[in-house]
């Protein structure tokens, strides 16, 4: 059902998206883009668009922060589109069926990040030799590695699901509790992102502001302002931040530098 040219094109797109997820535009790889692109390759751009949009909404807020990897949207998004167009699953089922591949992608990233740690000694060597070309090459190599790993994962995915046994099995998973659990877990990944941000930024005196932000979002949601919520949150947040900055600068100047930002209770 997938011709060889189509397969090659999908692998090329995967290669690019894998790199783009951390480099270059850091946006091409998003499901809302990959969905229609893969859809177009497979001859059904409309379905691709629908899957891409749905996947995008599902994973909104699950971003890598400080390097923490949620289930991977690149492999996930591409495979969901393949499921919908080729296996004919409906959008929801396609989303569910793609979860194991998203986990595979997550694993691929973690693997690359671990392997690349080993190459840092090599980088130090190039630095010691004042050899810029070596640094350049090392970076290119890492991107190629990630791209190839992802293309490989997608290849395995595409081939296996065109195999009737596998695809029957996967379809049968729809509505299964494991899939339900993976989806639920997928939705929870963003909390890791939030927690990491809090570890970075939240000083002891800022717990209140965290809960205040929560409260504001709750109000906006209940008032039917879910859409512009974040813009309005930013408005209020900027007011608070500017005020905080000005007051603390005033305090510092008043006190000849001895005071300044308090260190919490």
């Amino acid at each position, binding site marked *: 059902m997938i011709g060889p040219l189509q397969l090659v094109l999908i692998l090329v797109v995967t290669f690019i998206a894998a*790199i783009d997820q*951390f480099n*270059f*535009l850091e*946006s*091409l790889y998003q499901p809302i883009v990959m969905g*229609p692109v893969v859809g177009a390759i497979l001859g059904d*751009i409309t379905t691709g*668009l*629908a899957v891409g*949009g749905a996947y995008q909404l599902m994973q*909104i*807020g699950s*971003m890598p*922060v400080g390097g*923490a990897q949620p289930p991977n949207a690149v492999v996930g998004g591409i495979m969901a589109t393949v499921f919908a167009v080729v296996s004919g699953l409906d959008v929801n089922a396609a989303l569910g069926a793609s979860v194991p591949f998203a986990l595979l992608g997550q694993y691929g990233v*973690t693997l*690359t*990040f*671990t*392997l*690349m*740690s080993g190459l840092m000694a090599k980088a*130090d060597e190039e630095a*010691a030799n*004042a050899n*810029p070309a070596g*640094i*350049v090459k090392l*970076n290119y190599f*890492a*991107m190629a590695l990630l791209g190839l790993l992802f293309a490989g994962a997608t290849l395995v995915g595409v081939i296996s699901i065109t195999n009737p046994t596998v695809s029957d099995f996967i379809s049968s998973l729809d509505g299964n*509790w494991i899939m*339900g*659990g*993976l*989806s*639920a*877990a997928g939705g*929870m*990944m963003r*909390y*890791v992102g939030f*927690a990491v*941000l809090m570890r970075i*930024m939240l000083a002891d005196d*800022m717990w209140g502001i*965290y809960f205040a*932000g929560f409260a504001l*979002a709750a109000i*906006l949601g209940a008032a039917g302002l879910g859409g512009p919520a*974040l813009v309005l*949150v*930013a408005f209020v*947040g900027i007011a*608070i931040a500017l005020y*905080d*900055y000005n007051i*603390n600068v005033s305090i510092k100047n008043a006190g000849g530098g001895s005071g300044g*930002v308090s260190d919490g209770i």
Partner: protein
Amino acid sequence: MVSNVNTYKDLTPARPLDRATLNKMVWRSLFLQASFNYERMQAAGWLYGILPGLEKIHTNKEDLSASMGHNLEFFNTHPFLVTFVMGIVLSLEQQKADIPTIRAVRVAAMGPLGGIGDAIFWFTLLPITAGITANMALEGNIIAPFLFLVVFNVVQFAVRYWLMYWSYDLGTTAIEVLTRNAKEFTHAASMLGVFVVGALTCNYGATTIRIALQNGESVIDVQGILDGVLPQLVPLSLTLMVYFLIKKKGWSTIKCIGLLLVIGIIGAAFGIWGGNYTPLVEWYTLPA
């Protein structure tokens, strides 16, 4: 690798970098995370980004080596804001500042910019643009992906360019500005970030409880009861739990992700989490 050289050999300030070199580095900044890894994160990508500048500044091989060396130390910030750090560091390199000074400035800038950038770009700009266009996509509007790419990247490139020029031009003044009120600035920026993260916890809370029991005529809907206590109580609790594990128990994020996977799957086995599936253990019947 912490370099053991503290001053450059050649202490004559280099000529200011030309536009072409600055532009080139803006483009290279797009590949900051090319060789991302768990040991030094963006270190090698960062060095790749500023190499064109360093090569112009350090004509002397020994100095270039020293500079490359200390610019390979651990580095991590938000990719879109990296050009701000680039500008400052390059202006210090050009003036042949002490290496410990350069290091201190680099480290001081990368932390807060990382947090702020994540809050603003990954958790605010991206959800807004991708969210709106994803809804357009669901309505079959083929413009959606293009609109997303254009808006998102116009912002990205504007930020990258502007910060590079602004911080390099300000040169040492930027550092002066940044360092004089650095504590206050970081505090304020963190307040903004924390406020936004609080809002995100509520706004993107994606975990619901499925349990509902028929009780005579009426239905006891657990999620409904929780909403009456506090909307998004479950996402808030889970976030605080993960925060606690990371902060107090020193868990790695990978361990937290693993825990959430387990919680997700075991919960689904018992039909706890919302969603369209059949639990393994059906200890209650969903009311019709």
